[in-house]
């Protein structure tokens, strides 16, 4: 082996994953077929709030192909409430969320009855024969109405629609000053209310689950982001010993947070398989997904910014009302908390107070959706920074620059007590301004304004950071989250010298097979092609905490580095024995040990793997393996940042918005694979643009989801979107040995305020200072007319 190898980390390697995905050799959960497998269909409530006065499945039992049908009453002694792992306060109201409704339904789409049949079509057909009578109950949809005195209750037995109130105050925490004092002394005080509309994550693969109930060896395949967490919770919820439960996430078609959870459908399929003693599959239709898989956002934000007339921010207070929906999902109450420490963003803010109240309504539950709390925070602060700029007649970039943390001030302890390890906001912003042609576009904007051009131009600025790499276990514990945040990796060097990496992360589009191969290749000095990566099956990857919160690389990637390091150290002992030298005399590079000062005395890790496998000549007391495991728990979060700029043209006669140019410069630390990073940025930005311009889950007054399919829920197509010009600065994280930060959520966090700021900027001469998202032509046009936006 040659001594010099070009580093793999940093190369735009084409993905190993693709070979199967572009030829249709895929293993989606719905592709799984087992001998004797039965199919399940679920009858869902058409009512948002009702008592079930009669429910009779006997007709369904008589339909062709039907094996059985059952209801919540049939599961009385078996089913338990779905878990919420984040009781954010001691007194949080946590209503029982039974997988199959017992006597009351609380959102349209709640599972009411189940049919199991020999084929999927027969199961769906038989749903028609189920007889249900509902007595309607008052529906509460509006969050503020739900909190008002005398409001109808989603959960009558709880006596309130309030789930919790959670407060952070920098004065109380000792991390900053008192906001009330800052507001009293403020030279400028700006208050705004922003509404984060409800979104539907809209992964392309509808969820699917198969359960094979072999006694002592239960297996669940599920289209999930969290096979390991699911395994543990499945065991706890069903009383099946964890070592008798295997969960497999085969190919998973996207998640975006929408597949974090232990779902009613997973539990119902488990109970069904248990009842019939045969494998059972459930695959939802898209219409099912829209009402039953959790939604995202849906938060009202009241934000007050205090500043001096020179633009220096002196205080920030934020008051949220967050819609939980009818029940709590796995991390529903905690989502706003993930944003709580991000409203201060990249700015030096001396005093900060945050308060959030969670509220129940008769709607589909909300939970994590790409960014989870941080897009909301970034939106509010970046929108109000523009208001501050307008108030003080400053350029929006300048007002930000006067407040952000300077490169030389890192590490910087924020008003929330978080330590940002690294960043360079000037560098990213300067690069973005240049890429956009900021000054030229400002000149064009002025010209169009003075000419009274019916098509006005606006420029939107969004400078963001996020806390990701979830997460330091101790901090999660302090926030009352029910689990840790470590990640695990195993490295096996096989007898033939091929390397098998096992990771506890669970990718569903992120390219871990490729990126982890690059990392292992560098760490072990083996060819990229010689590394394979296994994941998503709890029997193979026995330990892990899965993929969400931009954590996989910043936590799981570091576990892999550490496991590789252990492999090398084990190999060193064997190499020293075989080369008859002291371990300290060995240098390791490019996959080989070399005795210092003795050219030719070398041994490659592949040769060592062979020798260890034979085990004919090992030092006394040394185990015949160089395989190693590592579990890494980060000490802190990682803090990617960036500057996104959007130039938007607004047709003032029609309200139509066209994104003319979108530029982003992201700093995600060291980049393992620039191709994958760019892809994540593109996709993330588009989801952020989609919130700004297109997407909204809408309920009618009775609590029916009007946007219940892709006909009405506007997932943008290629024709709706611009090209994204993406670039990077690279300020390595100092908190981990790879210097990586994470990129999965960055684009989504940054893009939404960039787009809305651009449209509002275009329309400032018309007296417009806000428009409710999504910025449909009608809303934009009405705002221009001075009507309600």
């Amino acid at each position, binding site marked *: 082996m040659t001594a010099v190898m070009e580093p793999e980390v*940093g190369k735009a390697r084409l993905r190993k994953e693709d070979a199967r995905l572009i030829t249709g050799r895929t293993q989606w959960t719905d592709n*799984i077929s087992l001998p004797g497998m039965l199919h399940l269909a679920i009858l869902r409530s058409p009512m948002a709030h009702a008592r079930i006065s009669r429910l009779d499945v006997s007709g369904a039992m008589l339909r062709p192909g039907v094996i059985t049908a059952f209801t919540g009453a049939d599961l009385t002694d078996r089913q338990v409430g779905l878990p919420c792992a984040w009781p954010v306060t001691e007194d949080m109201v946590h209503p029982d969320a039974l997988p199959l409704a017992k006597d009351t339904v609380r959102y349209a789409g709640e599972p009411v009855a189940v049919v199991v049949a020999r084929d999927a079509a027969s199961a769906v057909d038989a749903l028609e024969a189920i007889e249900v009578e509902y007595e309607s109950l008052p529906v509460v949809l509006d969050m503020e109405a739900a909190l008002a005195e005398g409001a109808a209750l989603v959960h009558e037995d709880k006596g309130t629609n309030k789930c919790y109130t959670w407060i952070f105050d920098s004065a109380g925490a000792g991390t900053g000053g008192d906001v009330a004092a800052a507001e009293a002394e403020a030279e400028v005080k700006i208050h705004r209310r922003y509404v984060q509309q409800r979104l539907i994550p*809209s992964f*392309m693969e509808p969820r699917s689950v198969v359960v094979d109930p072999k006694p002592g060896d239960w297996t669940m395949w599920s289209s999930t982001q969290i096979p390991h967490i699911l395994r543990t919770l499945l065991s706890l919820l069903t009383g099946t010993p964890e070592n008798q439960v295997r969960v497999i996430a085969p190919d998973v078609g996207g998640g975006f947070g929408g597949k974090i959870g232990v779902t009613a459908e997973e539990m119902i399929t488990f109970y069904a398989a248990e009842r019939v003693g045969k494998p059972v599959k459930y695959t939802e239709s898209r219409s099912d997904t829209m009402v039953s898989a959790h939604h995202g956002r849906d938060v009202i934000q009241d934000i007050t910014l205090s500043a001096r007339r020179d633009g220096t921010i002196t205080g920030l207070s934020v008051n949220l009302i967050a819609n939980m929906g009818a029940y709590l999902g796995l991390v529903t109450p905690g989502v706003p908390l993930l944003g709580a420490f991000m409203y201060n963003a990249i700015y030096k803010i001396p005093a900060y107070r945050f308060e959030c109240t969670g509220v129940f309504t008769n709607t589909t539950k909300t939970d994590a959706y790409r960014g989870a709390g941080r897009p909301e925070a970034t939106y509010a602060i970046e929108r109000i920074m523009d208001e501050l700029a307008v108030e003080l007649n400053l350029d929006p970039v300048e007002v930000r620059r006067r407040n952000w943390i300077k490169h030389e001030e890192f590490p910087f302890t924020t008003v929330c007590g978080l330590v940002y390890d690294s960043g360079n906001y000037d560098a990213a912003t300067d690069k973005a301004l240049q890429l956009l042609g900021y000054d030229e576009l400002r000149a064009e904007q002025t010209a169009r304004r003075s000419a009274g051009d019916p098509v006005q131009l606006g420029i939107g600025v969004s400078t963001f950071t996020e806390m990701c790499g979830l997460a330091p276990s101790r901090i999660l514990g302090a926030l009352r989250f029910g689990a840790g945040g470590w990640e695990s990796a195993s490295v096996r060097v096989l007898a033939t010298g091929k390397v098998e990496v096992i990771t506890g992360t669970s990718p569903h*589009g992120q390219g871990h097979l490729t990126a982890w191969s690059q990392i292992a290749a560098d760490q072990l000095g083996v060819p990229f092609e010689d590394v394979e990566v296994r994941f998503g099956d709890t029997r193979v990857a026995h330990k892990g905490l899965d993929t969400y919160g931009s954590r996989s690389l910043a936590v799981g990637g570091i576990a892999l580095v550490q496991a590789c390091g252990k492999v090398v150290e084990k190999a060193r002992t064997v190499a020293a024995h075989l080369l008859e030298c002291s371990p300290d005399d060995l240098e390791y590079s490019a996959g080989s040990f070399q005795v210092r000062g003795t050219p030719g005395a070398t041994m490659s890790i592949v040769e060592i793997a062979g020798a260890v496998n034979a085990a004919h000549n090992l030092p006394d007391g040394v185990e015949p393996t160089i395989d190693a495991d590592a579990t890494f728990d980060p000490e802190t979060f990682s803090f990617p940042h960036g500057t996104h700029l959007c130039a938007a043209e607004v047709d003032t006669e029609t309200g139509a918005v066209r994104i003319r140019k979108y530029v982003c410069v992201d700093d995600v630390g060291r980049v393992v694979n620039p*191709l994958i990073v760019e*892809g994540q940025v593109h996709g993330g930005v588009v989801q952020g643009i989609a919130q700004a311009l297109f997407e909204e889950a809408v309920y009618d007054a009775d609590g029916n989801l009007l946007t219940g399919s892709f006909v009405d829920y506007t997932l943008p197509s290629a024709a709706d*979107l611009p090209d994204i010009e993406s670039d990077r600065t690279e300020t390595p994280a100092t908190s981990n040995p790879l210097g990586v930060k994470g990129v999965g959520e960055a684009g989504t966090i940054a893009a939404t305020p960039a787009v809305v700021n651009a449209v509002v900027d275009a329309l400032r001469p018309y007296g417009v200072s806000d428009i409710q998202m999504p910025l449909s032509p009608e809303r934009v046009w009405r705002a221009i007319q001075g009507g309600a936006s």
Partner: protein
Amino acid sequence: MARISVTVDGVQYVDDVQPRTLLVHYLREQLGKVGTVVGCDTSNCGACTVLMTDPDGDAHGVKSCTVLAMQADGRSVTTIEGLASPDGALHPMQRAFHEQHALQCGFCTPGMIMAAVDLLQDIPDPTEEQVRKGLEGNLCRCTGYQNIVRAVIAAAGAQRGAPSASEPESEPEAAPEAAPAAESAPAAERAEPAVTA
């Protein structure tokens, strides 16, 4: 039940189907062609797109969730599983999707590739705008479409005989890929029980 005769990916099948059976369900459940997937129930997402011949024998993209299996009687259908040459060489569109990183989770990919192949039949040298318009009926949630557009334009170039970029244009530091996509070893299968195939 009705009897149909249909050629799928070069193999002729004679089968009895229910009159209501959709082509996509026939492909997936009766033929085991599970490479073609279902992403919605309103014909919006295009994940199920395949090529099907018309009475004149010309192949067009169809959403197989919107075609009855009976309507495929006497026709020839090509799915993502039959797009590569019999010798395993990838279709230029498959190669371009790989080389331009035009897929992430890969769920929309079979339909997107088939729709893109159909698009180039109609417009062999499309502009970016024509590609974006032409793929309007296929939804992707991961990529933001940008690399899909790049891939279709690269595949168009390759089909016209222009040299295809071996790496993404935006990454000059990209290392040359050692093996062309057609020869790269497919990732080994993970341990699984029987998959309908």
